[in-house]
């Protein structure tokens, strides 16, 4: 099959799935709806595998692409509906369609008792379609189409159980917060278009000059800054991260797909896509690195205190996304893509695992009411366990390789700094602690499950995706084994990922001596052992001596309250921005519209009325008279003209 046909099937399969399920949205048949949706996602996955395979082996091409039609053409602004798979989008499209298919499959069991499964699967397919537009679009505008499209699906899915006012509000919050980012994205598109005369990725990259823009207000810096604002919205970074924890109101597989594995990484993907441009804006890179590191640490600390299983995972996601931005900010775009991929595996796994737990606990999400679930949920426990080892960065699990690469680059890159590395390590220590805490409270220790609840393991359609994701969480990191480690391992495995991304992802120009392999191994040892110690401490806290956490918390009550309440950021936004805006709007309406403009108008009309008694009839509502006035006016005018 030709590339065009494959691209068409790849994109249209989820759209057709959406239409199929959307048109029979009233149906209660979760199995039919879920099967159709899963098959649609699976077809997309197969098409992407076939397309990506053309980048390999004999006769490999750097990219495969297809153009469908000219979307918009005005003046010099031409946008084609064209799609491309190159070495960067290949990783993303495989992750999205692959993990996406697994999550679709998982959803069949999870949503089997829901009232409107067809609607759910329709939205899920629509999301996949938009995500594919975002990933594969050959230009910034198509990416933006997908970007807003996934935001819309996120809105619909977070508020899926809309009868609950809070869930509907969470959806709205997500959409609006994302819109702030999107406004920045739009400005970024404009800056780029008027700078390069195109919005096509390849052409932009071809026209990037080799001279870094060292100012704060130069066009390249501004373009990158605007685009990064867009990324902070979609990828939940400071200051726009507040929507993601609330987004957990949606069904759990949605949290796995949209709010962990795929959509929220779009900001990282966009920056990597434009990496040669961002490299020319070192000031923006610094901003990105600082925001990323700050987000990584802040969200990890909040994760230490939360009781809702999904909230812990949500803050963990925000924190891990911070790592990816930290990587981008130090110019290690390859490491960012690497962590994006491994994170998609283990975080999707953990979210689906939490879904399995919630399913088993009949909707309970509070980890204080769990404990010792490993007895009832052996598969969920085993797979979650692998996810846990992966996220806390223990070798040879996936998270170790990608996180370590980020920390190493933060330390050695010309854009890096020891403080950025330190922040990364602190984040890693916190991650190991809260993840162990989550493991311990959920699966280990004594059971605190209420007697009315009888946990049970999930059906195979739910455990199979867990198992596949668990395998990926183990082996996923092996494509990027660092050279320092590869050199001492048997068989000397190379860094395949670095090779794959060579040429499409540029490295910042290094200066000074080449950092030594010994240093790399030493730093690796430091971060791994600190994380391991932290995990042991958490185990001690929550399994061996379960009374300790409360004692410890009582000693630092103030600090604990601050962190537990998420640093009062939401409260701050409401008190300082949202409520004042609403009050100001009410005030404006009352004073400007009702009092000032209208009263002025009345005053003017009173003056006019006072000018002659004949004008009294002005307000009697008699239309014949108005018609007469108009006629009279026209007659007088005619007379004036013709006099």
């Amino acid at each position: 099959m030709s590339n065009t046909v494959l691209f068409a099937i790849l994109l249209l399969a989820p759209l057709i799935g959406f239409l199929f399920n959307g048109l029979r949205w009233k149906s209660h048949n979760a199995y039919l709806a879920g099967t159709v949706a899963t098959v649609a996602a699976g077809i997309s996955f197969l098409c992407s595998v076939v397309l990506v395979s053309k980048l390999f082996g004999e006769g490999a091409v750097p990219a495969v692409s297809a153009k469908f039609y000219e979307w918009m053409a005005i003046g010099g602004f031409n946008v084609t509906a064209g799609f491309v798979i190159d070495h960067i989008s290949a990783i993303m499209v495989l992750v999205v369609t692959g993990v996406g298919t697994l999550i679709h499959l998982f959803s069949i069991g999870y949503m089997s008792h829901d009232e409107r499964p067809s609607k759910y699967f329709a939205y899920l397919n629509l999301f996949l379609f938009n995500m594919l537009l975002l990933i594969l679009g050959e230009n910034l505008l198509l990416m933006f189409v997908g970007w807003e499209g996934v935001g819309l699906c996120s809105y619909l899915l977070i508020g899926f159980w809309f009868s609950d006012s809070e869930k509907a509000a969470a959806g709205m919050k997500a959409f609006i917060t994302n819109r702030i980012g999107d406004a920045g994205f739009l400005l970024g598109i404009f800056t780029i278009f008027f700078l390069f005369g195109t919005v096509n990725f390849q052409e932009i990259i071809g026209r990037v000059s080799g001279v870094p823009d060292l100012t704060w207000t130069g066009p390249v810096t501004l373009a990158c800054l605007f685009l990064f604002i867009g990324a902070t919205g979609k990828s939940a970074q400071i200051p726009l991260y507040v929507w993601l924890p609330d987004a957990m109101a949606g069904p759990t597989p949605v949290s796995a797909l949209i709010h962990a594995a795929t959509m929220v990484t779009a900001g990282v993907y966009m920056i990597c896509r434009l990496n040669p441009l961002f490299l020319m804006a070192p000031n923006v890179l610094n901003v990105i690195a600082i925001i990323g590191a700050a987000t990584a640490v802040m969200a990890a600390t909040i994760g230490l205190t939360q009781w809702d299983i999904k909230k812990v995972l949500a803050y963990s996601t925000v924190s891990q996304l911070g790592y990816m931005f930290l990587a981008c900010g130090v110019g290690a775009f390859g490491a960012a893509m690497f962590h994006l991929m491994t994170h998609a595996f283990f975080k999707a796994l953990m979210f689906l695992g939490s879904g399995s737990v919630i399913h088993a606990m009949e909707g309970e999400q509070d980890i204080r009411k769990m404990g010792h679930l490993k007895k009832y949920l052996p598969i969920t426990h085993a797979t979650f366990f692998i996810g846990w080892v992966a996220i806390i960065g223990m070798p040879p699990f996936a998270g170790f390789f990608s996180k370590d690469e980020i920390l190493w680059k933060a330390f050695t890159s010309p854009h890096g700094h020891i403080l950025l590395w330190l922040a990364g390590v602190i984040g890693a220590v916190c991650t190991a602690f809260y993840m162990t805490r989550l493991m311990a409270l959920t699966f280990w220790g004594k059971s605190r499950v209420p007697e009315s609840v009888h946990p049970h393991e999930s059906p195979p359609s739910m455990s199979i995706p867990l198992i596949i994701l668990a395998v990926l969480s183990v082996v996923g990191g092996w494509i990027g084994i660092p050279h320092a480690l590869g050199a001492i391992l048997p068989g000397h495995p190379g860094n395949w990922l670095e090779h794959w991304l060579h040429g499409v992802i540029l490295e910042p120009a290094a200066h000074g001596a080449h950092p030594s392999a010994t240093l790399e191994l030493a730093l690796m040892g430091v971060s791994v052992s600190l994380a391991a110690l932290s995990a042991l401490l958490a185990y001690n806290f929550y399994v061996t001596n379960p009374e300790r956490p409360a004692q410890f918390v009582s000693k630092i009550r103030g600090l604990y309250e601050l962190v537990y309440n998420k640093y009062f950021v939401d409260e701050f936004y409401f008190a300082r921005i949202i409520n004042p805006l609403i009050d100001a709007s009410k005030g404006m309406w009352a004073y400007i519209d009702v009092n000032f403009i209208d009263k002025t108008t009345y005053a003017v009309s009173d003056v006019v009325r006072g000018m002659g008694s004949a004008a009294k009839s002005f307000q009697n509502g008699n239309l014949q008279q108005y018609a007469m006035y108009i006629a009279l006016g026209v007659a007088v005018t005619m007379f004036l003209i013709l006099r």
Partner: protein
Amino acid sequence: MLLSLITFLPLVFALLICLVPKDSWIRPVALVLALVEFAVSLYLFKVFDPAAPGVQLIERMAWVPEAGITYFMAIDGISFWLVLLTTLLTPIAILGSWTSIDNRIKGFHAAVFVLQTSMIGSFLAMDAILFYVFFELSLVPMYFMVGIWGGTRRIYATMKFFIYTMAGSLMMLLAIIYLMFTARDTLGMMTASLLDLYTLKIPFVAGSFLNPQTLLFFAFSLAFAIKVPMFPVHTWLPDAHVEAPTPGSVILAGVMLKMGSYGFLRFVLPLFPEAAEYYAWVFLFLGVVGIIYGALVAMIQPDIKKLVAYSSVSHMGYVMIGLFAMNMYGVTGSVYQMLNHGVSTGALFLLVGMIYERTHSREISKYGGLAKAMPIYTILFIIVTMSSIAVPMTNGFIGEFMILMGTFEASRPFAIAAVTGVVLGAVYMLWMVKRVFFGPEGELVKDEHHPLHDLSVRELVVMAPLIVLIFWMGLFPNHFLNYSKASIANFVENRDNYRLVLDAPATSEKSAATFDVKSDSVAKAGQ
């Protein structure tokens, strides 16, 4: 004769409606007639040449030769879609009011057709006085529509509407007359034809207010700004909308507001190029204020219809900044946004009307949980909401994107300020959607004595064309833009020396000789 046919056919229909003997026949007859008019207007696709940059299908004859007033009708890529929008929205409005208008239906439908003639006429008239006549004529049926079939405060609303717009248009009439006299003094003949008025060089002094071009510019601008409406002369609009019956709102928002923005494009910018350039910042500023102010005030409205009305202020603010960006992107976006606003705000008013018919309330706080009671209605409402807040793949995105891009090219600070509207638009619409459709069921929704029925087949038929257009215009904007491109490019590139008919001789003597033999001698007599 096609343009005259399209313009005056509805007037004939209005008379026909008066002859219908039985009240029960009026609605079907009116609908069929409106569809006939729509079909006739579709014939434009066959004869209109999208590649021609100037006006075409010219119809011209003397009307008041003593004053150089002509009956001059022509169409270009800018008015093309506005005419079609008018002929499309009229049958939709008639079908949409099938059950909501229940008294004096004969008069109502006659008024709709008279209104249609006046709106189409103002988009096609290329003579200033002829335009003025159509422009003013539109007030009369709208006045009746709100005043007779409107809500409880209809008299107040109609008075406000009438006085505001009359005040504006009187200024414009004076300005037109002044222009005609200027033409007599400089061209040697009195004329109201835009063909000649465009050739006038009206003295302009930068920095001073009291010079002819600046004064004329503001006189025209005031008239059109009230119609658009721009901040701060917008306050008639929310009142008129709230009191107007649904079809009145649809036509008022869908088409009549565009007469204002179209007026800027047809009269203000090409007639007074220096003043427009010099004072562009005033309109960019007021446009941006309108976008933000309209959105913020819409946000806190307790009444759905008033919210939509204020959203019009915000949307039309976009149209204005696009026009005053005065580049290809901005103007194209504005022309597109005029159509978008017609489609999506028209659709919103129809939807609000449908729920009002069921519950007789538009109070947001009395709703909630409507999504469960009326799922199809909810789906349509959310689609239209997405179009209104310019989500990609809907029509709204293309217009808003182009406008913001044009504004960005013209002035970055204004573009950055205007971009906040992208966020605020989502805020006021989604907050309303959340309160009306989601959450627990409100008092009107769970009222057991009046269970809510989802949309009827008729209501679906009313919405279908608009929903199709929302996606069609969003996915294939080129299908629409290709008809306007040449005219807009001609306007943008030759703004200082704009001509309606490109291949016509540029000098006034010759053009007068070609088109207007009579006025020459008469002008001399006039002197």
